[in-house]
């Protein structure tokens, strides 16, 4: 401001210029930002929302829930008659609309056995006169099955009726609430095991790609450029080949009657075909193959920039080749190695297609169970909770990648 060579006007002018350039930059970035918000960020947001927002029961039996609001669950008494009557009426409506099954399924998650209870009672109240239900429907329900006199059924119903819930996260972490409302571990560990297995598989794949990618990257970086450029094509062709094609190739190789088994059998190395496909081994080997380029390319570009004279200097100063390689050369490859390893790890942890096609049951990863809950069991909220946890994990790794490598340094091909 106190620059003696600039007049006030000139400073203002410069300020205006800067502001104009900033606005221009924003003007260029804004369309994509908006587009990504609508097509990508909003969907992810919706998924996060779905993982704890669950209005299904609240939409099915609104009146009953409104009545249950005044009832204190701790008292040990059954809900008031008004609530029971409201439930009888709503159950009849649901039965007529063939939606009582949905309610049964929902309540059953909170109170095992509620499914058959609700279904059988729904059949009983279906043909009863509406006026009668409004006045004495509650008694009818209680008479329909002795389990209705268990306070826990109504507690479960009230609990399922709340719109915001953490149940899906508890399930996703293999936890549950006991009747006293404390959070306890479930008897069977499903999802934590699966997360753990996904991490393990991702680790194997990362280690394998590093182990076999390293010599190749080194050779490519140190070979004469004509040789290296030709050989690079063999790294890039798989990279550009469809993921489905590469997975298909592994199915053809690993099948019971596939190429590997029939070759080994015709060479009389084995008598019985090996079970290669639909195993964890198949997932690991196929994904290692698919993700290799993501390791080789960053390694190669870092190794290409390492001055060979350091290594030669170490040798001429009397170091043995192997220690010199480990202590002089290897540390210089760490940026490429960590970039490649993080990238491979991030990609493999959330992989779906290849495990789904070659993994069988033991080679499944967390993505596969998310897809299962989305498509087969229709437990979308649980899928959303599992997905949110996976997203958290990926975000941490992404953040790490950005700190270590810098997301802007990500190069392709």
């Amino acid at each position, binding site marked *: 401001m106190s620059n003696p060579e600039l007049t006030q006007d000139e400073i203002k002018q410069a300020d205006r210029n800067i502001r104009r350039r900033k606005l*221009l*930059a*924003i*003007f*260029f*970035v804004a*369309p*994509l*930002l908006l*587009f*990504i918000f609508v*097509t*990508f960020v*909003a*969907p*992810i*947001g*919706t*998924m996060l929302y*779905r993982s704890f927002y669950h209005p299904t029961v609240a939409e099915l039996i609104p009146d009953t829930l409104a009545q249950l609001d005044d009832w204190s669950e701790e008292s040990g008494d059954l809900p008031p008659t008004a609530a029971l009557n409201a439930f009888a009426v709503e159950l009849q409506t649901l039965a007529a609309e063939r939606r009582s099954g949905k309610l049964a399924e929902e309540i059953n998650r909170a109170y095992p056995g509620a499914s058959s209870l609700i279904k059988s009672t729904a059949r009983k109240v279906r043909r009863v006169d509406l006026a009668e239900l409004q006045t004495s429907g509650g008694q009818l329900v209680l008479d329909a099955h002795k389990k209705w006199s268990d306070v826990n059924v109504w507690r479960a119903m009230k609990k399922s009726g709340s719109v915001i819930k953490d149940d899906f996260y508890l399930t996703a972490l293999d936890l549950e609430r006991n009747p006293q409302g404390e959070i306890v571990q479930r008897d069977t560990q499903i999802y934590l095991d699966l997360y753990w297995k996904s991490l393990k598989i991702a680790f194997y794949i990362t280690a394998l790609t590093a182990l*076999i*990618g390293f*010599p*190749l990257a080194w*050779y490519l970086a*140190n070979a004469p450029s004509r040789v290296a450029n030709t*050989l690079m094509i063999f790294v*890039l*062709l*798989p990279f*550009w080949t469809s*993921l*489905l*094609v590469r997975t*298909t*190739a*592994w199915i*053809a*190789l690993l099948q019971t*009657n596939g190429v590997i088994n*029939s070759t080994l059998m015709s060479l009389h190395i084995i008598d019985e075909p090996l079970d290669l496909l639909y195993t964890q081994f198949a997932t690991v080997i196929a994904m290692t*193959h698919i993700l*290799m380029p993501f390791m080789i390319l960053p390694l190669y570009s870092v190794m290409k920039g390492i001055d060979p004279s350091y290594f030669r200097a170490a040798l001429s100063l009397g170091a043995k*080749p192997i220690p010199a390689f480990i202590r002089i050369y290897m540390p210089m490859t760490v940026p490429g190695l960590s970039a490649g390893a993080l990238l491979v790890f*991030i990609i493999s942890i*959330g*992989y779906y297609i290849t495990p789904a096609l070659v993994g069988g049951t033991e080679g499944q990863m967390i993505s596969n169970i*998310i*897809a299962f809950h*989305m*498509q087969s069991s229709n437990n979308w909220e649980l*899928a*959303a909770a599992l*997905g949110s946890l*996976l997203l958290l994990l*990926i975000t941490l790794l*992404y953040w790490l990648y950005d700190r270590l490598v810098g*997301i*802007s340094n990500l190069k392709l*091909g």
Partner: protein
Amino acid sequence: MAKFPRYFTIWQKLGLSGVKLTAYLVLLFLMAPILVIIPLSFNAEPYFTFTEGMLALDPSAYSLKWYEEILADQKWILAIKNSFYIGLMATLIATVLGTTAAIGLTSGQMPFQRMIMALLLSPMIVPLIITAAGMFFFYTQLDIAGSYMGVILAHAALGTPFVVITVNAALAGFDYSLVRASLGMGAKPVYTFFKVIMPLIRPGVISGALFAFVTSFDEVIVVLFLAGPEQRTIPRQMFSGLREEINPTILAVATLLVIISGLLLLTMEYLRARGEKMRAGELD
């Protein structure tokens, strides 16, 4: 590499030959699975393996019937059309939006540049299963699930990070004073864009577009969640084929896809060489 320096000991030579051998074995591991499916797609029998006739090079053990089957099957024809239609539309959107955004981001004037960059690249990092699930929830509300529009928008979003990255790289070292000079001499912004910026970043834009196209062309999970039977693409068709009724038609399709990727690779390499030359100032 071929000749070792004379001062190398026998162990050093052996060690280096070992590394070289390992490197070639790894290359074999990378290429062999892809090469194996090409002859298998000409199998006369409905198997995924080499028959004795094939190994004996008996011509009758080979046939083109799986290729004929692709052409005869309406489902495959529709899938091929869909893949190209969806891929091209998504690429168009991704390239236009990605290129303009990259120009804004590299100008050095963008506030929160690093954060915005991380956000714009996140579609590439977030596992597709999560993206697909979220899109299913959200696009159903917008009523564009099960439509071409839904799949195209989704694929465009997935393709943009690649365009941003490649155009960013092409713009590294781009001298923004060229833009100021052009504008200062009275050129209109649109003219400046097409005559000054575009020629310099064209290789980056094209390779970004290719990446975006391949991303869409290769994508299954979003299609699995968002597309109806009308929008089935090639990978989607392969996915259900591999899950339900495995037959060598898939190998024939796979072989065709390998040829397409070979062509794409050659284009990319050509562009890369051109880009390097241009940066070195050897091209006018």
